């Protein structure tokens, strides 16, 4: 079981940056410490969390979003037979992502395709930048 409690979102301190640079020249595949690997990106309207979970049925993925924390939980099942080689990870996995932004919880959507899980977290209207007009007397 892999548990990752890093507050990834919005907490790139100097210390983290130093370590990231230290790891920089390495290949992507070697940097995978937690399972499943995930990407976080954002645009004006939403935050996107994408992760690679090959071979897991949608029913076996458990997604929960509770005040600013997104939890991705699931299990990778094992095939029956006599194993000659086993490289694919099996068992339970869990990753926790902290989101430091107001999210429209009712509009959160998740989509699984080709082993990629994409979660779209739309930002709440209150957190979007707004122009303020100055009244002239």
């Amino acid at each position, binding site marked *: 079981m892999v548990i990752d409690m890093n507050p*990834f*979102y*919005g907490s790139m301190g100097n210390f983290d940056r130093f370590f*990231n640079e230290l*790891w*920089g020249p390495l*290949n*992507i*595949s070697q*940097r*995978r410490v937690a399972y499943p*690997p*995930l*990407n*976080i*990106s*954002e*645009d004006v309207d939403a*935050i*996107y969390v994408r992760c*690679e*979970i*090959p*071979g*897991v*049925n949608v029913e076996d993925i458990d997604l929960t979003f509770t005040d600013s924390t997104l939890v991705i939980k699931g299990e990778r099942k094992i*095939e*029956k*037979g*006599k*194993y*000659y*080689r*086993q*490289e*694919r*990870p099996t068992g339970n996995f869990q990753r926790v992502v902290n989101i430091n932004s107001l999210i429209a919880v009712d509009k959160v959507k998740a989509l*699984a395709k*080709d*082993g*990629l899980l994409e979660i779209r977290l739309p930002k709440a209207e209150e957190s979007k930048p707004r122009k303020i007009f100055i009244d002239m007397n």
Partner: protein
Amino acid sequence: MTKDIMQSEAKGLPRMKPATDILETAEGFAIYVDMPGVRKEGLVIDLTENELRIGGKTGYQGATNETRVHVEFGNVEYARAFTLSHIVDREKIKATLKNGVLELLLPKAEKAMSRKIKVQSE
């Protein structure tokens, strides 16, 4: 980290050996290969006399107007080769791609199947 991956995207995709399970069942051998992000169209399977080569490119969306905040994976090119045993029936190899996992079923040839030998009494 983000810069790193963007650079490698420009240079050409990094090659990766996909994680693989190989197991034997009663009917034959099964190979499971983790290839997340690969679509059916992007998958190549080549069978030569005693080698099975698989390859595939991930089809993740490239540049968008999203800002990357945290990156742990990107587009890669998977490639791996397996040597086939002579007891595999090459005509009956089956491949299925589902949820980013490639399943290859390699049935054993009839003549290689174990069978019981009856002892005859005089």
